């Protein structure tokens, strides 16, 4: 039931992740320790150079012991991981393929960095795994509230109570949040955990 198709077209659909054999070199960004997926990918690495950037404490711990990639960068949180990713992408050459594994917040921030360096969608594969928590963009004050697990959330910028829509912006890497009680102040549906 929760595996139903996305209710709105703009919500990204993630295909099972495979190496892109057309690539000449590969960069895997890991922001969640999806063991079966990572073990499957790393058991059959692609042709060409492979670099791995880990941005998650559990994955860093585990992969640090088990994986032999040409280049392995272990970071324990997302912001350090994104910085390492950027410094590699900055110097990387055409022919690179980027694989982003983790929660949507992490993988879309990483995709945004790649886009800044001119990478286009055929060079990037994303796969959502780990927490379903959503980054929410407030359409009123344009602030970003990250790690949202509930259907309603107080905006980190303007404090309005936002209803989290399924409408996803790839450019912003976030779901849209609209003020819930705009019509009738104080009238709100119950708060539920919607994105575990």
């Amino acid at each position, binding site marked *: 039931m929760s595996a139903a198709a996305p209710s709105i077209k703009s919500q990204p659909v993630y295909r099972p992740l495979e190496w892109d054999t057309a690539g000449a070199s590969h960069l895997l960004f890991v922001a969640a320790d999806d063991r079966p997926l990572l073990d499957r990918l790393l058991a059959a690495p692609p042709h060409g150079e492979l670099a791995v950037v880990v941005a998650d404490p559990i994955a860093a711990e585990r992969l640090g012991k088990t994986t032999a990639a040409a280049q392995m960068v272990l970071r324990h949180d997302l912001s350090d991981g994104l910085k390492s990713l950027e410094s590699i992408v900055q110097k990387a050459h055409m022919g690179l393929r980027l694989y982003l594994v983790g929660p949507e917040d992490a993988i879309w921030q990483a995709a945004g960095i*790649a886009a800044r360096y001119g990478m286009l969608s055929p060079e990037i594969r994303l796969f959502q795994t780990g927490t379903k928590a959503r980054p929410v963009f407030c359409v009123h004050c344009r602030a970003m509230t990250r790690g949202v697990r509930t259907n309603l959330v107080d905006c980190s910028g303007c404090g309005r109570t936002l209803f989290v829509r399924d409408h996803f912006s790839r450019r912003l890497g976030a779901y849209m949040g609209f003020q819930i009680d705009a019509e009738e102040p104080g009238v709100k549906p119950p708060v539920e955990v919607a994105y575990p």
Partner: protein
Amino acid sequence: MNAEIALVLSRIVELAPGIREFWLTREDGGELPAYSGGSHIVLSLPLPGGIRRNPYSLVGDPNDHQKWRIAVRRQEQSRGGSAWLHESAREGQSIKVSMPANLFPMARLARHHILVAGGIGVTPIVSHARELARLGESFEVHYAHRAPEFGVLTNELRQLAGSDLYCYVASRNETIDFRELLNGRPLGTHAYLCGPQGMVEDFHKTARDMGWPDTHVHSERFLAPPPGEAFTVRLARSARELVVKSDQSMLEALEAAGTEPPFLCRGGACGQCETEVVACDSTIQHNDLFLSQAERDSGRKIMPCVSRLSGGCITINL
């Protein structure tokens, strides 16, 4: 549709043996519409046997509203168009020209641009280089030609690209090594080529082998419509019938019969002239670069600007 304006062939310059430059200006000296780097126009050439429409890339400055410039090489197997421009065209003559269309645009988000020209394929490359220079973008130009005297427009490119212009002269045994050219380029680099078909194919293949996605590799090639057997076209909607002569393209025959099918490139690349096939009692020779294999196999579509029939009769939804 296919709007044309009458312009004057105001200047003809011999650039090299078999290569001429033409200036087109407005009869009243007024301003011409703007265009973007990589655009082409279609000239309606008044050949003795009828109008021949040929596409040519604009070489000039997209910001020059006084004149449009094209450079034309006399094709050895000219179907009459380039031969007419080389032998019969006179300064001061009026000529009908289409509005510019761009099938070879630049990637706006690129971090670096590599422009490659082969022979007369230099024409759109010059207008790209001009636009990139004006925008202050990072770019380089690689220009391959047969012999020193055929390096037409080298001086213009030198002014635009400075030391980032590299010339390769075949008579001096210089060739472009695509592998070397594309190696170690930063992410976000886009490569563009205009040149002969074999060069274009080689370029795409090398780039693909080196892991470049097609989104970063751009090329322009216009095919000349190949001659072939004469065949018959039936127009389903107007219940008319016409014959495509062996040296004529199907599009030209349709135009000569007074229909106005849409077109942009007349070279099998843009898809604009796509026409629905209702029936066909012979084999379609698909010469375009547009239709997919599945579309070709279906037999339901034809690009009349370059594709034809090996004899017989085709009925189209027109």
